[in-house]
């Protein structure tokens, strides 16, 4: 984000809030002091989901940058990240270690729906913020029952609905075939699409094929989907399987209208391995800039990100969307902590997290992070885009799936 914008956000949001705390004394909960703010995190650094560990590492690099630049309100951020191996029991163990032994102020960006579900009850009973969780399930915005838990990214279901709106508007008589990962993530997308299509879901969806992360390839599923005679392909897959599906569909000469979920729309790490020619014409929706997309080459937000990567995370993979994701979510937390001023209690952290209105450098133009006491879904808008063989081209306006919030 540009310096001026940054200043602006800080002023508008900070000013109103810092006036009052300035009079009050400093207030701290465990994990915060005059010199330090301790935050915890769990990520899969080992095991089959270790690809996601890149997010946790990027966040660490970002807080190194924050600390090198003087910290937040003069306090250094102490970021403690543990490996949960994408296993719920391990996640519970590590979360308890963070809260009870390391005594962190909050747990930030724990990754995966199963792991977050496993710790949600504990975190809320302990009244420790479980902030900006790294999953797009819909349940993270339930502020009434779980006031200490908040999501961040657009939910999978809202994204599914966005595709449904798109189809109803421009291809109302199409036949849809769905490939999805057989877990909460895949099923949420399918539910979103079905809900969005409403009564027409039954007649429009002609085939559904699940795959397991343990499947070596999705070839068999693609052949079945093609055989269903569908002319729309809704592709709900993680990066590796997305590359495989795009490549296989092209190989067997299946050329439907292709809707790809945003999890896998990185040009560098998904479309390029699958063959840019094969990926031409794919639609997707997005809220973050793709760092490998040439159209952002001179964008100030992108330049700032590149400078950060070069200086603080030179080993990090710049083609992966995870580094952009980690960077932007870390910026969001930095803003929350900044807004907290000298009142670093867990209650105030949640209060500030629920009063955000942010425009960040790597968010797509027009998309904002907005929360309120009754809106625990920070990002709810997305934009449809189409791949032209080289870059993503915006199609239409900012859309909102509006599930829950």
């Amino acid at each position, binding site marked *: 984000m540009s310096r001026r914008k940054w200043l602006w956000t800080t002023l508008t949001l900070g000013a109103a809030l810092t006036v009052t705390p300035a009079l009050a004394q400093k207030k701290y909960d465990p994990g915060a002091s005059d010199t330090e703010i301790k935050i915890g995190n769990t990520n899969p*650094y*080992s*095991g089959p989901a270790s690809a996601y560990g890149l997010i946790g590492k990027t966040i660490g690099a970002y807080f190194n940058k924050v600390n090198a630049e003087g910290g937040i309100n003069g306090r250094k951020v102490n970021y403690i*990240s*543990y*490996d949960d*191996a*994408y*296993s*719920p*029991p*391990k996640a*519970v*163990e590590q979360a*308890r*270690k963070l*809260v*009870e*032994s390391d005594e962190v102020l909050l747990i930030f960006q724990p990754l995966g*729906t*199963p792991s977050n*579900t*496993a710790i*949600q*009850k*504990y975190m809320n009973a302990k009244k420790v913020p479980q902030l900006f969780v790294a999953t797009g399930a819909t349940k993270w915005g339930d502020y009434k029952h779980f006031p200490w838990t908040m999501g961040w990214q657009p939910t999978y279901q809202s994204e599914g609905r966005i595709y449904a709106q798109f189809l109803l508007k421009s291809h109302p008589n199409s036949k849809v075939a769905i490939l999805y990962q*057989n*877990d*909460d993530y895949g*099923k949420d997308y399918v539910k979103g699409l079905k809900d969005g299509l409403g009564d027409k879901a039954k007649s429009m969806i002609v085939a559904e094929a699940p795959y*397991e992360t*343990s499947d070596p390839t999705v070839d068999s599923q693609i052949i079945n989907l093609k055989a269903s005679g569908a002319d729309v392909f809704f592709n709900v897959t993680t990066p590796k399987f997305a590359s495989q599906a795009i490549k296989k569909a092209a190989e067997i000469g299946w050329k439907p209208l292709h809707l790809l979920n945003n999890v896998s729309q990185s040009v560098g790490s998904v479309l390029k391995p699958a063959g840019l020619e094969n990926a031409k014409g794919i639609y997707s929706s997005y809220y973050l800039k793709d760092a490998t997309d040439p159209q952002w080459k001179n964008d100030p937000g992108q330049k700032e990100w590149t400078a950060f990567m070069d200086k603080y995370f030179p080993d990090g993979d710049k083609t992966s969307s995870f580094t952009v994701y980690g960077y932007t979510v870390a910026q969001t937390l930095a803003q929350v902590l900044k807004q907290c001023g000298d009142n670093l209690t867990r209650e105030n952290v949640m209060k500030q997290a629920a009063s955000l209105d942010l425009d960040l450098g790597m968010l797509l133009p027009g998309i904002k992070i907005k929360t309120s006491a009754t809106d625990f879904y920070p990002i709810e808008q997305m934009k449809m885009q189409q791949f032209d063989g080289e870059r993503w081209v915006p199609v239409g306006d900012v859309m909102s799936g509006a599930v829950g919030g």
Partner: protein
Amino acid sequence: MAQQDISFSDTAVRGLPSVEQNSWALWGTVLFLAVAIALPFFLRSFVVFQLTLAMIYAIAIIGLVLLTGINGQFSLGHSAFFGIGAYTAAVLMDQFGVSFYWTLPVAGVVCFVFGFLFGLPALRLEGIYLALATFALAIAMPQILKSSLFEHWTGGVQGIVLIKPDAPFGLPISSDQWLYFLTLAIGLMLAVCAMNIVNSRTGRALIAIRDNPIAARAMGIDISLYKTLAFGVSALFTGIAGALSGVAIQFVAPDSFTFNLAIGLFVGLVVGGVQSIPAALFGGLFVLFVPNIAESVSKGLAGAVYGVILILVIYMMPSGAAGLARLVADKVLMKAHRKGPR
């Protein structure tokens, strides 16, 4: 083939222990109990929780000791029984409102039945083939738990969230401490049961089948029956452990019972010592804490550090912690003998 390969360097039947050894064992047990009971009052509650988990893994490993160490059958699939146990408890509590305490025996029985049934086809398989069949079971289990066939019970991919029981009778201890004591009590009970099985007629039959199946058959032992029984009993132990883990974690999900868990339990079995029931506790501690140690050495290379630790452990303790302990104990006893008045 592989069945005979599990070389049992010193057989389980080591002759009756001497009086001296007995008193050592007695003092050891008393000391262990005293420490185990005192610990939760001195440790942070999350460490108590970790120890509870370690004991739960140890209970599952006792099941493996009976199967592999005593009966000579392989299993790389005990995560499946662990998962079935956890889900039995969870579904009973969640859908039918059954009290947690009652779910434990039910989980055990259900797993016994599953284990027994799985043992039937497994009967025809030996060594490596059996290992692979059980491995297949471990791989398939998450997929089965996720299946929409059972979704209205299991919650499908979403899993089931559970509630931890508080200490009963108004005992002034936290729910973590209560669960620790409960697990300790159940673990001890099951360990004693397991030792009794080993020293019984049945146990001798199981050992005979392991050491020489043909001779065992000649002696009139019903090999099929005992082998499937061993599978069933082993699954029973592991299933009870699974039920306890579901409640300790307060959540069951298909992702909690992948083949990584099966491999973890297997590693715990070997580093503890395949034939020793008390050593299962060492195995449980290893399963829980060594990955954490590896992570604290290097985050990026945690897996590699874990692997190196594992190889070193195998080099230094070829017959597990139990073997090492026996070696040390024998040396100490020998010294005591020499110095003693006799």
